[in-house]
């Protein structure tokens, strides 16, 4: 039963009580969205986007012109600009905030679900989004929606600056729009055409999934509805201006998606999203993804049905969907044990091993904009890259896989061996004794004596290798 604490969260820390009613403990965490537990400074998305602006403007409009004939000077000043805009620091700060929520907050279950939705509506590695924007997008767009409806979440994600930029919607212009007939387009030979990228992913990844059987024409029609939703471009801010609806880019006329007609104009995006989230395939898709994340690679109909029912009954209210998923996870706790993804595993190592992780708020606060961050200040992004599971740097817009086989290879196993070993570097001195290991094993495993015997019988030469044994034990790898 104790694996449930890792299945829906990150385990029990050495100084925490083991909840007597695990299901109640988990269900109670998903109603409200408390403030983040990180005590250090948290920067707003707009503030960080402003740094992004300084970076793109400074590089593109200033340095490239100024040093067009001197590659070396260009590189030198570009590196300085990186530090002036905090390019090498923000993502580590964001990961620290994220991990702290899993490790030290009162709502680790909510944190695990926050991570799920961040990956569901993934911003993959593109331009400098990971450096400046994906962390704040997770904090300001995904997290506040965890106690709202799925419909609102989809709308907020779709109109967020990060997603609009990620999926190129600013580049989409209706062939029958005001801008299509503008003189400059003729002169520059730039006819107005749609960019289908965002529309396709809104259907495929964010709502109904390909199982809904939409056609290429549905994608085009949805892209028409989405034309005009773009960043407000200006000479000073370039592509980093706020998202707005530019009616000049909007395709005029009625549109038809999945057999339903939509009027022209700004409001039709909300209307089509409402229809998409109420499509039966959307409910099934969300239930399937949640089950794959928490329970098993192959969810059964019986697992998905209570989640689908909760979705339908509550009109997509996320706390109800989450509670249904948690209950299904609880019911299937002993029968299905899920191989944990690398980031989940690493957070569990940090929490159960009581590591000095993430870097302390004091360490992160000591960063001075304009300087090169210290090694420890960059450790979070470096470790996540190394273990192959950096939440802001998925390779593609479908995010990271939840399937066990995708996380099984000699190299991925090597990462767990190496970083379990290196976790010892973050151990607190007071925990370097058998009593500590005894305590954490008792709190987190149903048959602690077996694991204790394994650990203490095999007294390895280097203390760090005790962590290798425990954190690579088959029972630890699965939950």
């Amino acid at each position, binding site marked *: 039963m104790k694996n449930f604490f890792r299945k829906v969260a990150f385990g029990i820390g050495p100084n925490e009580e083991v909840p007597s009613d695990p299901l109640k403990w988990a269900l109670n965490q998903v109603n409200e969205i408390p403030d983040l537990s990180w005590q250090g400074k948290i920067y707003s998305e707009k503030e960080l986007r402003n740094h992004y602006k300084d970076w793109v403007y400074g590089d593109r409009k200033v340095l490239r012109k100024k040093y067009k004939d001197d590659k070396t000077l260009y590189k030198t000043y570009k590196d300085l600009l990186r530090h002036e805009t905090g390019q090498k620091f923000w993502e580590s700060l964001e990961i620290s905030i994220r991990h702290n929520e899993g490790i030290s907050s009162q709502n680790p279950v909510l944190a695990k679900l926050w991570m799920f939705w961040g990956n569901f509506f993934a911003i993959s590695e593109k331009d400098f989004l990971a450096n400046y924007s994906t962390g704040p997008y997770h904090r300001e767009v995904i997290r506040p929606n965890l106690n709202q409806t799925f419909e609102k979440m989809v709308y907020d994600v779709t109109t967020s600056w990060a997603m609009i930029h990620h999926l*190129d919607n600013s*580049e989409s*212009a209706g062939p029958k729009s005001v801008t299509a007939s503008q003189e400059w387009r003729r002169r520059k*030979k*730039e*006819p*107005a*055409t*749609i*960019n*289908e*990228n965002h529309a*396709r992913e809104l259907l*495929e*990844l964010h709502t109904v999934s*390909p199982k809904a059987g939409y056609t*290429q024409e549905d*994608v085009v029609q949805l892209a028409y509805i989405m034309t005009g939703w773009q960043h407000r471009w200006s000479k000073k801010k370039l592509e980093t201006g706020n998202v707005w609806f530019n009616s000049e880019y909007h395709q005029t006329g009625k549109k038809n998606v999945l057999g339903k007609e939509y009027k022209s104009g700004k409001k039709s995006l909300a209307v089509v999203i409402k229809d998409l989230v109420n499509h039966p395939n959307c409910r099934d898709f969300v239930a399937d993804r949640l089950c794959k994340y928490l329970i098993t690679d192959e969810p059964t109909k019986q697992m998905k049905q209570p989640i689908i029912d909760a979705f339908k009954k509550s009109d997509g209210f996320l706390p109800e969907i989450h509670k249904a998923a948690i209950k299904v996870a609880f019911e299937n706790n002993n029968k299905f044990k899920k191989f944990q993804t690398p980031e989940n595993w690493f957070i569990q190592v940090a929490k159960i091993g009581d590591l000095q992780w993430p870097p302390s708020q004091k360490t992160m606060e000591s960063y001075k904009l304009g300087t090169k961050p210290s090694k420890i200040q960059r450790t979070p992004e470096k470790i996540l890259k*190394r273990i*192959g599971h950096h939440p802001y740097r998925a*390779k*593609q*817009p*479908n995010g990271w*896989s939840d399937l066990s*086989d*995708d*996380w*099984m*290879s*000699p*190299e*991925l*196993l*090597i*990462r767990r*061996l*190496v970083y*379990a*070993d*290196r976790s010892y570097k973050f151990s607190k001195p007071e925990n370097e004794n058998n009593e500590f290991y005894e305590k954490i094993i008792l709190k987190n495993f149903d048959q602690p004596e077996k694991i204790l015997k*394994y650990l203490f019988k*095999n007294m*390895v*030469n*280097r203390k*760090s*290798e005790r962590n*290798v*044994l425990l954190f*690579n*034990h*088959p*029972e630890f*790898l699965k939950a």
Partner: protein
Amino acid sequence: MKINRRDFLKTTALTSLYFAGFGAPTLASDGPKKNLIVIMLRGGMDGLCAIPIKGDKNFEKLRSKINLDRTLSLTTDFDLHPALKTFKRLWDENLSAAVHATNIPYTGRSHFDGQNLMESGGKVPYQEKTGWLGRGMKVAGLTGKGLALALPMPLLIRGVPMNNNYFPVGKRLPSRSTLSLIEQAYKDHDEKLLGENLKIIMSRGLKNTSSDDSWVLASNAGVELSKPNGPRVAVFEVDGFDTHAAQGATNGAHADCLSDYDRIVNGLKQSMSKEAFNNSLIVTLTEFGRTIKQNSSNGTEHGYGSAVLMAGGLVKKAQVHADWPGLKRKELFEGRDLNSTIDARSIYASAMSTVFDLDFKRIQKDVFWGENLQNLTDKLFKA
């Protein structure tokens, strides 16, 4: 010059449409060790950017912002992107070739479904849990002979046990005695897959302290592939071909990706023994091509037909093999994409038949469920 499909077939001997049905079965031999290397080009490689058609005014007009201002010459009908320098060098030695206007039979334009299908070889996304290469290796009995140069194990190569992968972490492993204890724990818990992976880690000679630069990966793979008992199959990945905006032309985003591919081929060529390279085949794989027409962000959208690049000593000769569908609007797939007139799976089945010394029909039946594929072995590869 502007060619249409009929002219092309008439005038280009290299690209004859004549398919003589299934070739005679090639049987297992005691000959030299042969290797198959697949480079996956993720995001949708623009075949017409890599290998543009010559002198098609309409094509040039549709791509006014992303036309190449400099190309390398391949044939009377096709040019080559200048980023593909190694490919061209090999071409001049009859060691590289391409198939154009080809793709897997998938027209849905979704990256994820498309990539799943390009790896599984199937027709229904996410239905198959193994890849066509893994199944081919299984038929050929190549257990423990696969090497993926990637951190995860690509679906493409799954389906045969004991595959290795190499993507060095840059750090040392825990001690051998600790690894043995973990091995025992996996055994006690009946964790077969974890046990197999650990066994590979403990028995291999690859250095974990190197870097994961593509040149390092290609060089290490080349050395391993050259060993008599080394892997017979290697898989690489290049990301970033999804250029919806700022695709670039001679330089730019798509050019950088083609360069990455070319660097891997160069790394392999430099590190493999002459005998190993002469007995190898390096082929590319992508989920789809891109639209003929540029969009207003100087990029291209998801399309259909693309090209397969091939290199190595088992390539029959320097040629662009195609059943050219034409680029007039009515000749395009759904009026927007280069059509695919050759099922790319025919190329891969023929490649496996050549490298694994297996009867084409057997691959067709056991790897691709008896689907209607053409045996291109004689046309594309040295038997």
